[in-house]
């Protein structure tokens, strides 16, 4: 069984995703790094499904569905912001500053 290595891979991919989120200012690249994180978690679920049953696969199923919905809406928002500011650089978007 490849449980240990799978989980380790999942951990590494997740950390890379987090690093990407912290390092990049471009909104779209940020989103992609989030997708990367979700993929890492999916891998984790699949690996553990061997131990804990089909509910692991079910979770993967749902995660993918929700990721799709989230990507759609998130990108629509980014398009909206782009129309306003002509850029997707997150460093300039601070209207919620208090």
């Amino acid at each position: 069984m490849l449980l240990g290595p799978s989980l380790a891979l999942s951990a590494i991919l997740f950390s890379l995703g987090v690093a990407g989120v912290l390092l990049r200012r471009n909104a779209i690249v940020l989103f992609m790094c989030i997708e990367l994180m979700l993929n890492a978690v999916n891998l984790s679920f699949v690996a553990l499904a061997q131990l804990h049953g089909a509910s692991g696969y079910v979770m993967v199923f749902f995660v993918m569905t929700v990721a799709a919905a989230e990507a759609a809406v998130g990108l629509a928002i980014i398009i909206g912001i782009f129309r306003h500011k002509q850029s997707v650089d997150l460093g300039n978007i601070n209207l919620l500053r208090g």
Partner: protein
Amino acid sequence: MTEVVFYIFAAIAVLSATLCILQRSPMASALWLISTMFSLAAIYVLLNAQFIAAIQVLVYAGAIMVLFLFVIMLLNLGHAESDFRGPSTVAATLVIVGLLAIELLALTRYTPRRLANELSQWPTFTDPATVFVAGQVTQQESASRGVVGALAAPLFQTYLIPFEITSVLLLAAIVGAVVLAKRNV
């Protein structure tokens, strides 16, 4: 043999992911991410979850990433300037990610045997043999009917309501995306 293949694809995945987060152009990042997803699909196959691999390629790589690419091209971001954050953020990132990786890797110590042993020492004693019953059932099912078969029963019985709600969620996402992206509401 399986392990060797696994490590190859794992290496490809890590490499692709690293390049994904370090590329300057968003287009290139997207493509490297697709590469990561494909290698993950391969790993799914190695983990005996063929169906999952299939829908990974179809949904993630085939639909979601395509959507990303469409948006990148729509916004004409192909040639972007450098958009990395400053050195202070890089330092913070290294620290945080380092800690995170250490924490997560620490979890991988739990091999099944060790987990079972620790569970048996808890007050509500759990027989090690019964902890991973569900997993064995699933493996038997997958052997006979494939992952689809193993997935079908729980999905349409135990998790039926979340399934239905997910369909509503998708509907909401569609409507939301259309409304948000319109020029004049």
